[in-house]
């Protein structure tokens, strides 16, 4: 592990009791959900991680493990040229994570995307709407228990047409 990074992981360990893993030179730090906002603030303010490169999630439904979801925060520091990944494990039953939109502006849209795709609630999010799928959709497509396909895309606004083709939608 990079020396600069080692110090940072150590600081996180002392403060939040995190664990970490390493794979192909990347460091993944596991943070508890209640600490994530503090951890991100600390990394941004003290260790110059100015850029939240990515915020996404992954679903372990098929492996029947709890916690079912991991929310992933990929951070970059431009000043020191290092990256670190924070991971928050979230239970499958009513998944909830505190929102990081107050720390990084980009988390606003990225959290909306994760909510849209995985149904993970971000508590305290300023704008908790769906972002990619249409309003009123109930499923969360990137969950592993969401089937791929089987539904004909709707290319018309002629409601009689839609009703005719999708009888099941009315039932």
């Amino acid at each position, binding site marked *: 592990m990079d020396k600069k990074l080692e110090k940072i992981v150590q600081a996180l360990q002392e403060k939040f009791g995190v664990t970490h893993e390493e*794979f*192909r030179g*990347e460091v*993944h730090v596991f943070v508890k959900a209640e600490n994530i906002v503090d951890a991100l603030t600390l990394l941004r303010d003290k260790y110059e991680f*100015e*850029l*939240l*490169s*990515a915020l*996404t999630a*992954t*679903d372990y439904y098929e492996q029947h493990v709890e916690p079912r979801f991991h929310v*992933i925060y*990929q951070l*970059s520091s*431009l000043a020191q*040229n290092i*990256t670190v*990944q924070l991971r928050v494990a979230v239970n499958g039953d009513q998944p909830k994570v505190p929102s990081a939109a107050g720390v*990084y*502006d*980009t988390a*606003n*849209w*990225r959290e909306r995307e994760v909510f849209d*795709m995985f149904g993970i609630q971000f508590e305290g999010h*300023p*704008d908790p*709407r*769906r*972002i*990619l*799928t*249409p*309003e009123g959709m109930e499923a969360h*497509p*990137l969950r592993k228990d*969401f089937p*791929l396909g089987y539904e004909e895309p709707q290319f018309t*606004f*002629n*409601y*009689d047409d839609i009703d005719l083709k999708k009888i099941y939608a009315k039932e």
Partner: protein
Amino acid sequence: MAQLEEVSYEPFKHLVSERALTGETMLLNMGPQHPSTHGVLRLLLELDGETIVNAIPDIGYLHTGVEKNMESKTYLKAEVMTDRLDYMNTTGNNLAYCMAVEKLIDLDVPERAQVIRVIVTELQRIASHLVFMGAFGLDLAAMSMFLYCFREREYIMDILELCSGQRMMTTYFRPGGVWRDVPEEFDSAVRNFIKIFPKRVDEYEALLTKNPILLDRLVGIGILDAKTALSHGVTGPTLRASGVNWDLRKARPYIGYEQYDFNVPVRTEGDTFARYIVHIEEFRESLKIVEQGLEKLKKLPGKPVNSDNRKFVPPPRAEVGVSMEALIHHFKFWTEGFPAPKASIYSAVESPRGELGVYLEGNGGPKPHRVHMRTPSFDNLSAINKMVQGHLVADLVAILASIDIVLGDIDR
């Protein structure tokens, strides 16, 4: 037949100012069918007269579920979908994905393949910037720019067709190398382009850079300061125009970028004009890289362009007929695919729009468990509200053109 419902602004209530609720400011819908939103982007504008108070982007009209689809395909077949994300930078997307796969399965790529990757990626960067420049001119009523830029882009499309057989959806790079070596005509075709193009860039500059009408519309418009840009995750030329010298090709060199001599254009103004100039200068820098790449390629004639690790790269066709192992590998590769470890990696490249990152997670089988494309346009667009506040609607068009968004990249 049922009537279409009236568009409701109810969901956006908390995003507009209080004046909108009393009817003092006007809400105007722009897009999704609008020529200057570069695709199917809908913007809800809150206007005070002609001045923008708030601009609320509404995206997702082009959402195709690429990430979900990739989970059901083998690593190789999933690559085809990456072309369709940012359709102006197809080989760049391939590169990001291939590098992620190579990192996950720990696969080396021979040098000749790396050099080919650099040349083709930089040509694609120029092509992408040409579309930017053309659309930028078009949005600012400089119609001829569009025609000129697409004329030059055609050279690059021809080169891509030479290499891969396709103009746009190339899927030319594969995990472990490239699909096949470049043809003989490649060198002369690229050299021809290098000869022509610098003069053409000068022509664009003569048309636009000092044009007083254009300057009036660009200078001081849509200023984005560095801190806001970073907080919004803005990367690429948009970030560099705001005075942050951050280019992944320099910061974390990949595919051998450390061996090339090039500069990273940076401007400090952060306005629309700065973003335009950064793009113009990147034309010249990319051309420099292409030229050096050709020299490197000359020194590596006949060298392999694919890894010889038969577990991850198919054997050459000639071997399949004579070698039993090759036949087995060929069969296993094309039916089952190759397995990747149960782990996750994140790898990022500098696309023409910014940091194109791929989060790739394997589950021990031949299909990815999760692929996430961190697309630069998504974050770049999220900063639009900060850029357009207080400007006119006509300026919004210029600002939107200057951040160079591709809707396929945003909605995935």
